[in-house]
């Protein structure tokens, strides 16, 4: 709760910075603020599980705190990555927008009412629309922002309609009330309630960019500035999955027969479409966009398993942490390479192994983690998903996931092959700031440490 206050306060401070002329110290202030929010976040651990806030609109239970923790630590890394994004014009606006997006993200981890869900989604999305278009003289960036806005609003419409239908059936916005209504009704729910659940499902699938609702993602990812793409594929994704999980495991878990088959088909489609399309991409940025769809499918598998114990939640928490850190790693390398070499295509990585062994080694770790090879974090992430899903009747999805994972290796390793196998000495040297080198070192270490000792994350809830 206090973390949410701190981030909101920082956002307001950022807006005031232009007027009161403390733009210069804003960047360190934000870094310190986020770190403070992260630490304060965990002082509430186990404290107030039973204390609902604001007439039960928000509940910071341990699950919410853990996901907020993932979001905040990723945000801290992201701000280090994005330092020179805040040296162009509109500095204070950019700060405020990112910080308010963070507020929305944290709300999505902790909502306990349909209205806060909707608020969180909008508070997160609206700054993201603007940020996607923040390279304002670039056509692709404008296109990205516009597409994101259109598709996002469409999804929000679905979400609202779904919420309205559910309200119509149950007479409440409160998640716990809806949940108890479902368990009391024992199957005799009106048909439009199920329609509402499915509409909420569709809206959430839009937000996590699962196929066939993924069409906006590659264009938006490619058009947006690289750092904003990194933001979308880490923080936004984690928040969306926290919300998704809360809705479908906790609230609609009782009517899983309505949505589980739909979700299974969506997962299968996402796995196939994303991996096959990613394999044909020439741009690393676009490839990462498609691969993020495939990672979304993996996290959805943990939701599909609908494990009433902690296994599903643990799997999603670990997956989002592993994926966020891995993505930050990949995007930091990509950002530096594409800045110096003016291209985010795969050929920009040629000969990197020889010229910049450190950068290349970090990229190898990122790719191995995203591909799910031991002993990186990505491997355990996949492993946990497999273990929760294998006990269900959806074993065919596992086989499909395995086959598409092998395709995944193809495109992740294309980057490695380019770095170590293809020679190209004509290209520019990649210059990198010390802070970025530090960020790379730390996140590589975290990726491997999470792969060696996953205990700390996986044993949080049990």
């Amino acid at each position, binding site marked *: 709760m206090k973390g949410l206050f701190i981030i909101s306060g920082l956002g307001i401070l950022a807006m005031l910075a232009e007027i009161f002329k403390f733009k210069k110290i804003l960047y360190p202030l934000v870094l310190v603020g986020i770190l403070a929010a992260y630490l304060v976040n965990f002082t509430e651990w186990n404290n107030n599980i039973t204390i609902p806030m604001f007439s039960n609109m928000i509940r910071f239970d341990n699950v919410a705190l853990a996901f907020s923790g993932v979001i905040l630590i990723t945000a801290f890394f992201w701000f280090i990555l994005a330092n020179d994004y805040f040296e162009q014009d509109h500095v204070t606006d950019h700060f405020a927008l990112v910080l308010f997006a963070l507020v929305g993200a944290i709300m999505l981890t902790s909502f306990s009412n349909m209205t806060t869900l909707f608020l969180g989604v909008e508070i997160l999305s609206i700054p993201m629309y603007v940020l996607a278009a923040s390279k304002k003289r670039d056509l692709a960036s404008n296109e990205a922002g516009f597409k994101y806005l259109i598709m996002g609003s469409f999804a929000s419409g679905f979400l609202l309609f779904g919420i309205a239908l559910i309200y119509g059936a149950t007479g409440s916005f409160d998640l716990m009330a809806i949940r108890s209504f479902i368990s009391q009704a024992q199957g005799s729910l009106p048909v439009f309630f199920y329609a509402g659940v499915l509409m909420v499902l569709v809206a959430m699938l839009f937000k996590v960019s699962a196929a066939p609702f993924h069409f906006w993602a590659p264009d938006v990812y490619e058009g947006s500035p690289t750092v904003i793409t990194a933001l979308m594929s880490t923080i936004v994704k984690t928040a969306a999955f926290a919300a998704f999980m809360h809705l479908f495991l906790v609230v609609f878990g009782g009517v899983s027969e309505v949505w589980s088959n739909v979700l299974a088909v969506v997962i299968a489609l996402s796995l196939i479409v994303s991996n096959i399309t990613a394999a044909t991409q020439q741009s690393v940025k676009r490839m990462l966009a498609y691969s993020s769809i495939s990672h979304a499918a993996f996290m959805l598998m943990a939701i599909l398993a609908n494990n009433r114990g902690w296994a599903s939640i643990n799997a999603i928490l670990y997956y989002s942490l592993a994926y966020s850190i891995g993505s930050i790693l990949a995007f930091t390398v990509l950002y530096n390479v594409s800045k110096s070499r003016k291209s985010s295509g795969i050929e920009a990585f040629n000969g990197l192994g020889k010229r910049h062994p450190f950068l290349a080694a970090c990229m190898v770790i990122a790719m191995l983690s995203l591909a799910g*090879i*031991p002993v990186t974090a990505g491997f355990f992430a996949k492993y946990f998903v497999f273990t929760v899903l294998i*006990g269900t009747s959806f074993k065919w999805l596992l086989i499909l996931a395995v086959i598409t994972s*092998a395709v995944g*290796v193809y495109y992740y390793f294309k980057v*490695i*092959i380019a770095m170590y196998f293809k020679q190209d000495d004509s290209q520019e040297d990649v210059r990198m700031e010390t802070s970025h080198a530090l960020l790379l070192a730390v996140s590589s270490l975290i990726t491997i440490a999470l792969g060696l000792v996953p205990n700390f994350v*996986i*044993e949080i809830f049990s």
Partner: protein
Amino acid sequence: MLVGLLIIIPLIAAFLVFFSKGNTSRTLALGLSAVEFIVSLVALFQYKHNPDSSNLLLNCSWVESLGIHFAVSIDALSLLMVLLTTFLVPLIILSSFNTTYEKPNSFYGLVLLMQMALIGVFTANDGFLFYVFWELALIPIYFICLVWGGENRAKITFKFFVYTLLGSLFMLIGLIYVYNHTGYDTGIKSWALTDLYSAGKTLNLNQQSFVFWCIFLAFGIKMPVFPLHTWQPDTYVTAPTQGTMLLSGIMLKMGTFGLIKWLLPLAPLALNKWGGLVIGLSVFGILYASCIAIVQKDYKRLIAYSSIAHVGLIAAGILSVNQQGIQGGVMQMLAHGVNVVGLFLVADILMRHTGTRELDKLGGIRNMNGNFAVLFLIIMLGSVALPLTNGFVGEFLLINGVYQFGQWVAAFAGLTIILGAVYMLRSYQAIMLGERKDSTMAFGSLASSDKWVLYIVCFTIIAFGVYPKPLNDLAEEGTKVILTYIK
């Protein structure tokens, strides 16, 4: 303790070598791998002295809540495989002394890293740990082939990587499936090998079949068994010689070893049902690969196909699930490991001295270097399993084992002896005998490091051909343990 040392030494050695410079890295690598060999000999004596010694066990918790342990131990079977690994790696490193690799520190570092993973695979007693080491072994060899390989390597090593990774992911699913059924009596899930064994036995036939095929896919690709072999010839030919030696000498044994320890006792019902089919495939693979080997022109490719034929017989013997078959499989794994390293070194020597491996362009080397001709002859005879060479013991037991499974199968599998002799003698004739050709005119004497490797290989071939008892006893002991688990 000792077993932990066996895993940690190559790891430390790899890091030391990574940070060394120039030619010191290969001497350092050789020295450290020799130390590792000595430690493994200590483990052998320890085992002989007291097989239940706590020195040969290591079990610490890794992820307690999921029942994952870092559990490794040395029993008869894994001891043999560890000895094979620690014996071959110094030889492989020594055989590279006449080739200059770019960035030798990374090259030898990766070789040692791979050794660490291989020893992990052979000693692991925890399903999860086994999988992790299994995958870890893949990454160094991928980079060895990718960075130091020959023509068209990016595509070929890639195919190899995807094939094996696909297989191992299926294995992961199979293992997780069994893991999910552990704790049916205690309620606590566990990855421990014995728990997996007993959980596997509680499954019904359909469930076991699922597990069997998932896991077999990984082993079948690694060995490789027909029709999963298509990655193998290209990869063997393209990889640098030392990479090929690692692949065929040791890595191939991961598959056959896995069959014995991680598949047979896990799904006995499915084995009854599907074993015949897999043996059929293996035997067909023997004939298929032998026939292709006969018409090969490139000597390295010929060895690659001969390797498929050999491993087909090993797989058939193991899957016939009897004392002779499995024991013969283990013996043949050891013999094949040593022989194939010798053969690939011969191919490498030919390439370095004459610039070609084409059989048509070679000939009459015997007249130039009689010493080499004798050494090559011994290795070749070991490879066709002549009595009094190390290959004979294994092959004899294997055919005996397959015969107990079915006479006709054994008849076809036995053709490997004839066909093997055909392609091996034919290639020897083409390379060593006959008229000298342009390329072999200037074939000089061998470098001393090559000579030493060949001497050691030939010595092993004859020594364990004449007196196989020490190895045979261990193999018999290991087989009995496995058979009691299956029954």
